[in-house]
C-alpha cells in the first residue's frame, strides 16, 4: 500500500497524457488538487494515529522495498500541503491551456519523486529519486523562460551536478565497504568499521553532497538566484519542500538512521548549521528585493534544523522534525504572499512599497502571522520548535551554539519586522492606490496556512501537557 504514494501520482501523469483531447487539459489541475488533498488527509490521519498504513493488505504486485515511519509521514504531509498550495497558485499565475497542463504534470512527477525520497530504504534509490526531484526543479525554474530564470537554473544545474558526483563517489565507497546499498547493510558495515578512512570519507562525501542540495552555507551559491527568478508557484515548491526534501530530510534520515551520529558528524552539523543561521540572517537584513530576503531567510531557517540535528539526541531529532514542518508551512505562506504582492503590484523592491495592509488586509494579516512564526514569537508554532531546538542543544551540552541560536532569533525578528513594516505598515506609497486584494486562490491558501500555524502553536502545549500528565 505504501508504494501507492509513488505509483498513483505517476500513473495519473501517464493517464492525463493519453489523447483525451481538451478534457484532460481542463481536468488536470483538479486531479492534482484531489491527489494532494487526499495525501494530506491520509498522512494527517496516520500521524494522529487513527489509521495504520502498514496494516492495509495489498497484492504482492505492489510490494516494493519501501518502509514508512513517523519521519516519513511528516515529509508526506508537508509535501502534500506545499504541492497542494502550489497547484492552487498555478490557477491565477500560470496561463491556461498547454502551459498549465505541463506545469501540473511536472508538479505531480515532483510529488511522486518526493514521496519516494520519504519511503525508500536503499542509498542508491535515494540518490535516484533525489536526482528525479532535482531534474524536475531545473525544468520548473526555467518554466517562464526569461533570462534570469535560465541563469538561476544554470547555476543550480552546475552545483547540483557536483553534488551528484560527490554522492555517487560516496555510494561506490559504500559498495566497497558494505557490498550492498540497502540501509541495513550500510548501517551494519559502517558500525563495524567506524574509524576507517574509507568509511569516514564516504560519510563526508555524501554529507557534503547533501549540504549542496540543501542550500546550506557555504554551498548556498545557487539558492537565492533560483528562488528569486522562478515563477511564484515554483518558488513555493522549491522553498517549501523541494530543497528540504532532498537536502534536509535525507540528512536527517542518513545521519540518524544509517550513518549514526558521532562526535565528528555532530560537529560538522553544528558548524554548518550555525554558519548558515548567522550568515543567512545577516544577508537577509541587507536585501531590498523581498523574494531574495525570503530566500536568505530559508537558508537561515534550514540552519536551525541542522543545528537541532547536531545536538545528537532524540529531543534534537524531534525538534528538528517539528521545525521542518513549521518551516514548510510558514515559508510557503510567506512566498504565497510574495506571489500576491508580485501579481498585484508588479514591484519587487521593498523601498517602493508601503502601507499595503489597508488595501490587502488578508495578505497583510497572514504575512504578519508567518513573519512572527519565522521569528519565533509565542504562541505561534515557530516559537515551540525553536525553543525545543535550544533546549536540545543545552541538554547535549552545546551552550555556545544555543546562545548563537538565541541571538540569531533576534536577527530573524529584525529582518522579518523590516519585511512587514516596509511592505504593509506605514503610509501608502505612491502609485499603489488602486491595488486590490489577491484572488481567492492566493488569499485562501495564505489564510489556511496561517490557521495551521496558529492552530499548531496553540495545540502544541496542550499536547505536551497531555503527554506529561
Amino acid at each position, binding site marked *: 500500500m505504501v508504494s501507492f504514494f509513488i505509483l498513483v501520482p505517476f500513473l495519473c501523469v501517464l493517464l492525463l497524457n493519453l489523447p483525451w483531447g481538451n478534457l484532460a487539459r481542463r481536468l488536470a489541475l483538479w486531479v492534482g488538487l484531489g491527489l494532494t488533498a487526499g495525501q494530506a488527509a491520509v498522512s494527517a490521519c496516520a500521524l494522529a494515529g487513527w489509521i495504520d498504513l502498514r496494516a492495509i493488505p495489498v497484492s504482492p504486485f505492489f510490494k516494493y522495498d519501501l518502509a514508512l515511519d513517523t519521519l516519513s509521514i511528516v515529509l508526506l504531509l508537508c509535501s502534500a500541503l506545499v504541492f497542494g498550495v502550489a497547484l492552487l497558485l498555478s490557477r491565477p499565475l500560470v496561463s491556461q491551456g498547454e502551459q498549465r497542463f505541463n506545469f501540473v504534470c511536472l508538479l505531480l512527477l515532483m510529488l511522486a519523486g518526493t514521496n519516494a525520497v520519504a519511503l525508500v530504504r536503499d542509498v*542508491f534509490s535515494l540518490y*535516484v529519486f533525489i*536526482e528525479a526531484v532535482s*531534474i524536475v526543479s*531545473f*525544468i520548473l525554474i*526555467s518554466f517562464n*523562460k*526569461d*533570462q*534570469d530564470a*535560465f*541563469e*538561476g*537554473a*544554470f*547555476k543550480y*544545474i*552546475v552545483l547540483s*551536478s*557536483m553534488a*551528484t*558526483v560527490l554522492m*555517487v*563517489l560516496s*555510494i*561506490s*565507497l559504500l*559498495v*566497497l565497504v558494505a*557490498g*550492498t*546499498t540497502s540501509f541495513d547493510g550500510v548501517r551494519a558495515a559502517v558500525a563495524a568499521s567506524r574509524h576507517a578512512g574509507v568509511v569516514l570519507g564516504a560519510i563526508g562525501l555524501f554529507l557534503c553532497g547533501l549540504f549542496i542540495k540543501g542550500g546550506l552555507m557555504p554551498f548556498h551559491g545557487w539558492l*537565492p*538566484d533560483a528562488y*528569486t*527568478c522562478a515563477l511564484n508557484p515554483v518558488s513555493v515548491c522549491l522553498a517549501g519542500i523541494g530543497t528540504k526534501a532532498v537536502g534536509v530530510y535525507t540528512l536527517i534520515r542518513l545521519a540518524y538512521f544509517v550513518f549514526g551520529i558521532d562526535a565528528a558528524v555532530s560537529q560538522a552539523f553544528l558548524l554548518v548549521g550555525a554558519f548558515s543561521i548567522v550568515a543567512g540572517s545577516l*544577508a537577509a537584513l*541587507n*536585501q531590498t*528585493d523581498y523574494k*531574495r530576503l525570503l530566500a536568505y531567510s530559508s537558508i537561515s531557517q534550514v540552519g536551525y534544523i541542522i543545528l537541532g540535528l547536531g545536538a545528537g539526541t532524540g529531543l534534537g531529532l524531534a525538534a528538528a522534525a517539528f521545525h521542518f514542518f513549521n518551516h514548510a508551512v510558514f515559508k510557503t505562506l510567506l512566498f504565497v504572499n510574495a506571489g500576491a504582492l508580485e501579481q498585484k503590484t508588479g514591484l519587487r523592491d521593498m523601498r517602493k512599497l508601503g502601507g499595503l495592509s489597508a488595501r490587502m488586509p488578508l495578505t497583510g494579516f497572514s504575512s504578519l502571522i508567518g513573519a512572527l512564526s519565522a521569528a519565533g514569537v509565542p504562541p505561534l508554532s515557530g516559537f515551540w520548535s525553536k525553543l525545543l531546538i535550544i533546549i536540545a542543544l543545552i541538554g547535549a551540552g552545546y551552550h555556545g551554539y544555543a546562545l548563537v541560536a538565541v541571538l540569531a532569533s533576534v536577527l530573524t525578528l529584525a529582518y522579518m519586522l523590516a519585511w512587514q513594516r516596509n511592505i504593509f505598515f506605514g503610509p501608502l506609497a505612491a502609485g499603489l492606490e488602486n491595488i486590490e486584494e489577491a484572488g481567492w486562490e492566493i488569499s485562501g491558501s495564505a489564510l489556511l496556512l496561517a490557521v495551521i500555524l496558529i492552530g499548531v502553536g496553540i495545540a502544541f502545549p496542550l499536547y505536551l501537557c497531555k503527554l506529561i500528565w
Partner: protein
Amino acid sequence: MNGTHLYLLWPLAIVVIMLLVEGLYCIFMTYNLIRLLIGVELLIKAATLMLVTAGYVTGQMALAQALVVTLIVIEVVFIVVATGVVIGFHRHTGSLDVRDTRNLKG
C-alpha cells in the same frame, strides 16, 4: 577467492582522481557554457569509473552494472535538460559566455 583484484583499487582510484581534477579544472577555468557541461560530463565519467572499480574489487559486478546503467540514464536526461537551459540562455543574450551570467548579484 575474494580480494584477488584488490591490487587494482589504488591505481584506478588515482585515475579517478585525475579525471576529477580535469573536470573541476575545466568547470572553473572555462569561459564557454558548453565546455562547462563537458567538464561536468568528465566528472560523471570519473564517478562511473569509481563505481565499476568498487564493484570489480568486491566481486559485486552485477550490482555495480545495475547502478551504472541507472546512472547513465540519469546522466542523459540531465545533459538534455542542461543543454536546453543553455540554448534558452543563448536565445536571450546571444552569447555563451559564463561571464555574462553574472547578472544576478547579492
